[in-house]
């Protein structure tokens, strides 16, 4: 490993990429209906701009970005809006969100939402606005609106294109890099201009030699075509060790710079985008095509014909499973995402969203899960933790509900990669505990915030009442004095008025 930095912890996982890996990217026929959630990304939900009954072309805007950290949503099939209502989202399970539901009407021709841009001619603002208008979010799974990353407030020295697909089973980025390497490289050029970085590193795990070769070829072809010197783009193979594709781990591996706790890569001069996201940027700029589809891996021992599919967003998972030949096992477990970090789907009726990289199908295990034993403090979790946390201590405090101890032990730094849970000989579902503790902490934070607000309101009210009371008393005292005065020395009207009007400053200040 030359010129690279080794991140702490991590695991060497058995690869299971074979089943879905080698084939082409298969186009998926448009489903009869798509369900487009208005919140498929981190941040504020999008605002719908269509009405029920309205006909929409593929690529047409159906909801606009509601805030800086937000992303527009476009029709992924041509058809008619039949409903704008709540449907259950895949993440997190059980939570419903507003969706625009479009029923297809057969028209498959693509409506270009925007005119193609020449990335060398267009201004940086135009390009950034285009990425934003295309509704592009991080396609690696984090679903952070990409445009928000592309206006860093510090100088950027390195643009990192993340082709490190470190979860077992998932091959969607691998397929994309092998079959459409020029899209990734073209997108990288656009991004290089956008963030004004000196160099671009395209990182690929060393278990994907074909992808790395294809990308290198694309870079070479670009250099051969271009009359001017091309920007510095290097394809870097990084060791296959989970979670090498985690943003913080990857930035460390490539640059030896640690993203500060609670911070983002731009703080160390790096902007990092997933390879699929980069290809989507290319499509938005060169083709004027918004993000209406993505490559999804359908794989696992429970699926008949695993593969990578180009899937219109909002496609029901059930439709995708049928396209992959259906499931083989009777009792099927569905996981969205990879086996390490994915989430179980309660139902196949939920939909593919922008962050969906994989549908993993496994037969439900017919043996009971191993019994959870007490923590023996063996520290294997700590050795495996890529964030250098102490999961055994976090578990201790989460389990004992001593939540205030979780902050100094870095609960918020946990990236939920699952390494600790995999190595635990006591089979403690550590990540579940940490997710649970995180929501508990967030709950507490909210409650404390509310309590503080209401205390501030009460204090203000008490102060107001107190001041009114003192003013009343002062007036009463003044009137009393005024009544008393004529007996001793008659005062002028003016004097009485003065006393009455003067606020009881001294009294108020002393209270």
């Amino acid at each position, binding site marked *: 490993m030359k010129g690279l930095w080794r991140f*702490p912890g991590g695991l060497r*996982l058995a690869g299971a990429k074979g089943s879905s890996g080698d084939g082409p990217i298969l186009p998926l026929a448009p489903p009869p209906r798509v369900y487009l959630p208005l919140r498929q990304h981190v941040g504020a939900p999008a605002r719908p701009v269509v009405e029920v009954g309205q006909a929409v072309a593929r690529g047409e805007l159906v909801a606009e970005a509601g805030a800086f950290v937000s992303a527009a949503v476009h029709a992924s099939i041509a058809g008619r809006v039949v409903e704008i209502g709540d449907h259950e989202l895949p993440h997190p399970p059980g*939570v419903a969100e507003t969706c625009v539901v479009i029923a297809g009407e057969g028209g498959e021709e693509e409506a270009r939402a925007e005119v193609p841009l020449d990335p060398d001619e267009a201004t940086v603002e135009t390009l950034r606005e285009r990425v934003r208008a295309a509704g592009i979010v991080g396609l690696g799974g984090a679903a952070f609106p990409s445009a928000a990353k592309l206006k860093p407030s510090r100088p950027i020295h390195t643009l990192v294109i993340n082709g490190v697909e470190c979860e077992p089973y998932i091959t969607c980025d691998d397929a994309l890099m092998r079959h459409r390497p020029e899209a990734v490289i073209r997108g990288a050029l656009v991004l290089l201009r956008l963030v004004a970085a000196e160099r671009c590193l395209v990182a690929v795990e060393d278990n994907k030699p074909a992808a790395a070769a294809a990308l290198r070829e694309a870079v070479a072809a670009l250099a051969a075509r271009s009359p001017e010197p091309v920007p510095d783009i290097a394809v870097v193979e990084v060791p296959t060790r989970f979670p090498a594709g985690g943003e*913080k781990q990857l930035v*460390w591996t490539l640059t030896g710079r*640690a*993203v*500060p*706790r609670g*911070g983002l890569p731009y703080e160390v001069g790096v902007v990092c985008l997933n390879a699929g996201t980069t290809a989507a940027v290319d499509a938005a700029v060169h083709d004027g095509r918004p993000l209406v589809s993505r490559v999804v891996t359908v794989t696992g021992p429970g699926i008949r014909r695993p593969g990578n599919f180009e899937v219109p967003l909002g496609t029901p998972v059930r439709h995708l499973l049928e396209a992959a030949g259906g499931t083989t096992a009777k009792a099927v*477990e569905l*996981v969205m995402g990879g*086996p*390490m*970090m*994915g*989430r*179980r789907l309660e139902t196949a009726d939920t939909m593919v969203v922008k962050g969906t990289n994989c549908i*993993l199908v496994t037969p439900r295990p017919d043996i009971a*899960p*191993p*019994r*959870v*034993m*007490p*923590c*023996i*403090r*063996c*520290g*294997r979790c*700590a*050795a495996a933790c*890529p*964030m*250098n*946390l*102490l999961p*055994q*201590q976090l578990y201790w405090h989460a389990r004992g509900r*001593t939540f205030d*101890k979780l902050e*100094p032990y*870095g609960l918020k*730094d946990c990236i939920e990669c*699952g390494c600790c*849970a*995999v190595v*635990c*000989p*006591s*089979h403690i*579902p550590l*990540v*579940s*505990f940490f*997710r*649970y503790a995180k*929501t*508990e902490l967030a709950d507490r934070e909210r409650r404390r915030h509310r309590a503080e607000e209401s205390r501030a309101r009460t204090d203000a009210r008490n102060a107001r009442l107190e001041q009114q009371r003192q003013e009343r008393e002062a007036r009463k005292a003044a009137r009393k004095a005024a009544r008393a005065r004529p007996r001793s020395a008659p005062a002028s009207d003016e004097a009485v008025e003065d006393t009455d009007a003067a606020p009881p400053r001294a009294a108020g200040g002393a209270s």
Partner: protein
Amino acid sequence: MKAHDPLRVDAAGAPYITPAPGVGRVMVLVVAALVPGIAAHVALFGWGLLVNITLAVAAALVFEALMLAIRGRPVVSFLADGSAVVTAVLLALCLPPMAPWWLPVTGAFIAIVGAKQLYGGLGYNPFNPAMAGYAVLLIAFPLELSTRTLPLALQQAPPDLAATIAYSLGGGGAAGLDAMTAATPLDRLRTGVGLGQAMAEIRAAPVFGALAGRGMEWVNLAFLAGGVVLVALRIISWHIPVSMLATLAAVAGIAHLAGPEHYADPLFHLLGGATMLGAFFIATDPVTAATTPAGKLVYGAGIGLLIYAIRAWGGYPDGVAFAVLLMGLTVPLLDTYLRPRIFGARRARVRDGS
């Protein structure tokens, strides 16, 4: 939005991947790694150790099952974790090979009931159960515990297995035992030094071998081999054994250089007594040892230092048990203050309050 209770099995989420070998398998590997040392001990010192192990394991399992039943815990799955077996074997390894039956049984009782189950069972005991059992026995029955068997090579007529069992079940008794017991090398060393004898003179006694105590040097080497396998398999981390052995060697080396006539050489300490057993199998007990990398280094160094101090200047010939127990006291402190730096943190945060 309320989160799922993670303790409910059906709510346990990712990872969806084959789980790691369980606690039971870890314990099996630990016992397997002890086999070379046990074999060497039996070959060099006779059947006594095997009788001890059998009695201690049987007693530990009975006590563990009883306590689990009383505490309302699932007996079978907790017995199957193998931790009681490991505790019993480690305890038996510390006892004199020719011991009356009640010695391993009482030791197992103290270890399992007193030091483990009364504190909450697996994972909750603050002190190493095997060492707690041994230390209590050592204090309560100093005579029985210091009656060590000579190496077979120095015995006139070593007892066979049947005679050993009969001796043990007969409750001991000094008859016939005199010829096979003597002070251990560590014992002999401290008495000799106390009497002002020169090191060369002391080491000429028949209980000493080429490297350390006769017999025990090979037993230590066998435990070292088993321990190295455990480190290679990542069942234990290297931190504690390496720092403990390095510290012991360094302190012994300094003392030996300063006064070679009065202080034995480092090799003697490394291959004498319970050093290797302690370094790889006792000090590394996950439940009671420090858990952070830096904490483990300090913990191991502390044990190495204390072993030397007790051997050279303390009241007992060997110090592994007391060193481990004493350093056990420091574990909460070490775990709190020697935390690794969180990835991306500028400095480790020690503020905690626990």
